């Protein structure tokens, strides 16, 4: 078939479709919605995937986060108990000394407290840490500086606060150089960081999200670990009736960073071995591996995308069957026309191409409309529901390609049926 013949066939097809405008439009709608839902579903799936991966990537894929967890109580303590558990300064020291390949080791203490400036006060989370904290959780400083090693070595009463806290306590004043009262002591504000930088460390874990939601903490205060150690007691307690439970926890977290993703899993095993030994198999810590979460999330969102895509593909399939149905009806309605064409010299292949061209025109038009509509829907979804959506070029090509494929697949049988009708009987058909 040369280009001229194709042009002629397409022209013939358009004429026939134009004869039955309503039927053609209704038939096309099946494909429009199919293609449109494939694109929309894939966009939503891709959006969910990116969102999850971004959240976990913020934890740092080369980080390993060791957290203190409260061990399961072996006996119900109705009396006065002192419960010492969790990560310790010695643990941090041991990790640093044992593993030479670690880039950094960052011990972290987290203390819920209260901050006060003049008459305004609010709940805060005090984070006692070291100056190289920003190697594991990049700190975006808005003003001033972050903690320095001098601060650390001299136990200086300085702190870095986040934007949220600035809004809450300082309103229109510049907080740098101001004195902030936290618990019973006074600290000089030396820097302001972008919002919720501390939370990025726990954002990926459900625990972290739950904690942030329940504590009602207005913001984070970063201070040297040494300062936090001297100013805040490691002992916390709960008192009620005749029970009196005391807990002593030195560090809430130790974050270590390795050089590359390949070192993450071996380091995980080594760390676990070391801590098990030091802690005598006591289950009072947990090692979170963002890389594992990342891989798990990638796997889950892939499944999510496949499920959504399959549902959409089924609707496309239904559209295709609709097209086949209509084309079969069209063929039987046009039996006489087919007979005439055969008498005038049309070969079987000419008839096949004619009906295939009509089906393809329908599905491609439907595909095109579906792509247009499908590119709009994700924006609407994002606008009204906060769900992130990402339209990839691949999904557009995929959806359009599938619609073309459906045109050929479901158009083939009606076209073949038309071509194989007996010309004599077709001519006699009323």
């Amino acid at each position, binding site marked *: 078939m040369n280009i001229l013949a194709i042009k*002629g066939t397409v022209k013939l097809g358009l004429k026939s479709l134009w004869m039955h405008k309503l039927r053609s439009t209704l038939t096309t709608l099946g494909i429009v919605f199919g293609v449109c839902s494939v694109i929309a579903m894939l966009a939503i799936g891709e959006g969910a995937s990116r969102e999850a991966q971004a959240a976990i990537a913020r934890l740092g894929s080369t980080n390993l986060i060791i957290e203190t967890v409260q061990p399961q109580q072996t006996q119900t303590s109705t009396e006065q108990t002192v419960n010492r558990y969790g990560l310790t300064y010695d643990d941090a020291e041991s990790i640093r000394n044992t593993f030479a390949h670690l880039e950094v080791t960052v011990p972290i203490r987290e203390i819920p407290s209260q901050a006060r400036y003049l008459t305004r006060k609010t709940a805060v989370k005090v984070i006692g840490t070291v100056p190289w904290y920003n190697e594991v959780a990049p700190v975006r400083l808005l003003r001033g500086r972050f903690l320095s090693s001098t601060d650390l070595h001299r136990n200086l009463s300085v702190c870095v606060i986040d934007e949220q806290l600035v809004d809450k306590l300082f309103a229109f004043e510049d907080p740098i150089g101001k004195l902030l009262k936290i618990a019973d002591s006074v600290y000089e504000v030396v820097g302001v960081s972008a919002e919720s930088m501390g939370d990025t460390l726990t954002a990926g874990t459900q625990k972290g999200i739950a904690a942030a939601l329940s504590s009602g903490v207005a913001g984070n205060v970063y201070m040297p670990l040494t300062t936090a150690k001297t100013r805040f007691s490691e002992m916390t307690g709960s008192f009620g009736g005749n029970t009196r439970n005391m807990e002593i926890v030195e560090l809430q977290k130790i974050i270590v960073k390795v050089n590359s993703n390949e070192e993450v899993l071996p380091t995980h095993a080594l760390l676990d071995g070391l801590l098990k030994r030091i802690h005598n198999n006591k289950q009072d810590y947990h090692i979170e591996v963002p890389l594992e979460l990342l891989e798990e999330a990638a796997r889950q969102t892939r499944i999510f995308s496949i499920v959504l895509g399959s549902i959409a593909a089924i609707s496309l399939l239904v559209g295709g069957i609709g097209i086949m149905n209509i084309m079969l009806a069209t063929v039987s309605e046009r039996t006489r*026309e087919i007979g005439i064409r055969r008498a*005038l010299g049309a070969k079987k292949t*000419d008839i096949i191409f004619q009906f295939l061209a009509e089906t393809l025109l329908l599905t491609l038009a439907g595909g095109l409309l579906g792509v247009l509509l499908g590119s709009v829907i994700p924006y609407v979804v994002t606008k009204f529901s906060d769900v992130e959506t990402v339209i990839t070029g691949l999904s557009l090509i995929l959806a359009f390609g599938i619609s073309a494929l459906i045109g050929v697949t479901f158009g083939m049988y009606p076209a073949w049926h038309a071509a194989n009708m007996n010309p*004599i009987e077709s001519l006699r058909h009323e």
Partner: protein
Amino acid sequence: MDVVKIENLSKTYQMGQTRLRALKEVDLAVSRGQYLAIMGPSGSGKSTLLNLLGCLDRPSSGRYYLGGSDVSGMDDTELSQIRGKRIGFIFQSYNLIAQLNVLENIELPMFYQGVSAIESSRRARELVEMVGLGDRMKHRPWELSGGQQQRVAIARALANDPVILLADEPTGNLDSASGAEILGILETLHNQQKTIIVVTHDTAIAQRAQRTIHLLDGRIERDEVN
């Protein structure tokens, strides 16, 4: 020279248990430029002969030479080519295609022969003028009278300059005035040395041909020159 030459042509239909011998060892030769009428009551094998002559069907046995080549053993694709190139069909019910206008209907046989758009358009205009419908080129079939539609059908049949024109009751659906018009055109074509085969019930129409063959029970009963 014989444009159509049929030797020993038979056609048998198997209908369930019964075998129907629609055509029994028919011999027929039609020379170039001849105007031939085929007559016969229904069931005489008229339609079967027409379908075989028109290459719409294949014989059970025997030979059929059309324009010098043996078409009796050809496959579907080859027969389609032969129909398009060497045969011009004129049907009782005109059989124009509704979604195409007059010009496009006439161009259709040329489209299937791969004639270029410019050439087929030129030829179609020439033919539409010849049948006197130059002012109706863009009309759709339903906008034309029966006589006009049949004239378009004749123009279409002539598009690829066929070896024979096969007309099946060409005036069957027409009033006498339009019918006479159509027969007039056929006579003009005959005068231009076209070979014409008309199948009809109507003796008056058959009278206008040069030669009439009468079919009965699948055989040629009479072959007479008018």
